[in-house]
């Protein structure tokens, strides 16, 4: 047993380095979880788990190696593998996700890179109707959009109040994930990149109202802009909204809409009004299989054109904890003379022990540059440990 100060130091460093559990697994619909609010403090999914969510994660996510998982939660389900027992109203969390990637574009040679995707610590307070949520972390790129200073990031931080029967409503203000489409962890998918609605760093400051009850869940965010970017001309203002209805326990259908305007777009460096409107569905036709489908129309005033992005993902879980994932997607900017980008992913993920999973993906893309398409290939290996 290491000396007490070493253990405390380890915990301190972990708390400094490792916030945020980036769980956002929309394929949980295979377990009849159509909504997110029972397992996540964020009612639209992702991030810190509720006590119930942590227990269900332990029962349903990981491989149990022959031991019957049953309905009993193991001691390892809790924070820091059950070594620490915070009070029920306090939900600390953390996540470390690393990526080794080898990629090539066109006839170029493979290049390798190592990316520290997340080293976030997060915590939430849930007491009566009161909700508070904050994350802080570290990434190995300079000046991310979630930067507090340099490479220190805070992706989410908000205060809220839940009300109504079973806390069906939550109003909150702060830096919040955009309510749009399917909330999934693959933040580089075309549907997430083209709409700027990923879990990585596209959160915006604003005020949101969500509703979660029975078969219906919805959220609208009044976007005040990302106040971690300056000057003000780069801040987008507008709204983002989604609504999803689950008529049965294994299928849900939703629609999304987003309109924002910035005096100077961070990509285009021009005044730009962005629009994205789309539909999505999650369906588990049989227990091992979950299908995710999203299609969005996208438009930008700076480049007058209407394009689209679509995504279809199939997640098969032949044995508990092991996921075989196939994804197809495309993107068309709509600009005159522009081609269509295509992408195919084949991957496998394994929740091999409590609070840890690994994933490997092979990605083949045909990226449209004007009228020409250039092939791109990537092999990615991720390791994810969460607290």
């Amino acid at each position, binding site marked *: 047993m290491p000396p007490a100060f070493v253990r405390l130091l380890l915990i301190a460093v972990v708390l400094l380095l490792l916030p945020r559990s980036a769980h956002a697994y929309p394929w949980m619909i295979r377990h009849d979880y159509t909504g997110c609010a029972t397992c996540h403090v964020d009612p639209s999914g992702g991030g810190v788990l509720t006590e119930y969510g942590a227990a269900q994660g332990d029962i349903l996510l990981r491989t149990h190696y022959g031991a019957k998982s049953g309905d009993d939660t193991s001691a390892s389900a809790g924070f820091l593998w059950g070594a620490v027992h915070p009070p029920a109203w306090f939900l600390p969390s953390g996540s470390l996700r690393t990526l080794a990637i080898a990629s090539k574009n066109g006839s170029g040679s493979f290049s390798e890179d190592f990316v520290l995707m997340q080293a976030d610590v997060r915590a939430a307070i849930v007491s009566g109707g009161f909700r508070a949520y904050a994350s802080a972390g570290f*990434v190995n790129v300079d000046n991310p959009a979630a*930067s507090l200073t340099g490479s220190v990031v805070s992706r989410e931080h908000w205060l809220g109040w839940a009300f109504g029967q079973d806390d069906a409503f939550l109003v909150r203000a702060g830096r919040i994930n955009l309510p749009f489409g399917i909330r999934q962890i693959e933040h580089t998918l075309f549907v997430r990149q083209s709409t700027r609605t990923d879990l990585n760093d596209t959160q915006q400051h604003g005020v949101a109202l969500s509703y979660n009850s029975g078969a219906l869940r919805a959220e609208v965010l009044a976007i005040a802009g990302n106040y971690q970017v300056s000057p003000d001309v780069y801040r987008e203002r507008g709204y983002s909204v989604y609504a999803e209805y689950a008529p049965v326990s294994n299928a849900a259908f939703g629609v999304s809409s987003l309109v924002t305007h910035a005096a100077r777009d961070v990509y285009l460096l021009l005044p730009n009004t962005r629009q994205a409107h789309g539909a999505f569905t999650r369906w588990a036709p049989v227990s091992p299989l979950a299908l995710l489908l999203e299609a969005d129309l996208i438009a930008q005033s700076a480049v007058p054109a209407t394009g689209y992005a679509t995504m279809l993902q199939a997640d098969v879980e032949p044995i508990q904890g092991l996921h075989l994932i196939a994804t197809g997607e495309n993107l068309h900017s709509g600009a005159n003379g522009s081609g269509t980008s295509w992408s195919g992913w084949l991957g496998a993920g394994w929740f091999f022990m409590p609070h840890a999973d690994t994933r490997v993906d092979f990605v083949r893309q045909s990226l449209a540059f004007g009228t020409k398409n250039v092939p791109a290939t990537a092999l990615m290996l991720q390791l994810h440990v969460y607290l």
Partner: protein
Amino acid sequence: MIAAKRGYSALALALASLAWAPTARAEREFPVIIQSDLALSYEVPCSVCHLKENTGAATARTPFALALKARDFTDGQSLGTALARLKSDDFDTDGDGVSDVAELKAGTDPNSAADASLIDAQEPGYGCGGSAPHGRSSGQAALGVAALAWLLTRRLRGRS
């Protein structure tokens, strides 16, 4: 407790993997090379190659950056060759009818048919203080964490 120990082992493994994590700093030589090779009157902003100004190899993913990578651009030495190939290919990333090299010479963004001016463009700053695109590096932040850990160790040793 066994589960907790296994958990710490996984955490240690993940932390150890950080040892291979490079601190992705902005390669300030790249804009200078592009300016020099193409005889530009201005230094190209980071946004030409990096998403949302995030510097580091992992974020050099704009269409123009990918077009360079497709021509074997990997480092400062290969950048000139990749630019020359881009020029000889007369490649037009955004498909607006003007080649990338011609766009850079005209001071417009080769990534977008919107043709935003790159000259004297005020780049967005990130962070609560609105830090410039080349603000505090990850290395400095890591040093800060290490200093905190050292102070904590000293304090705990003093108590024991």
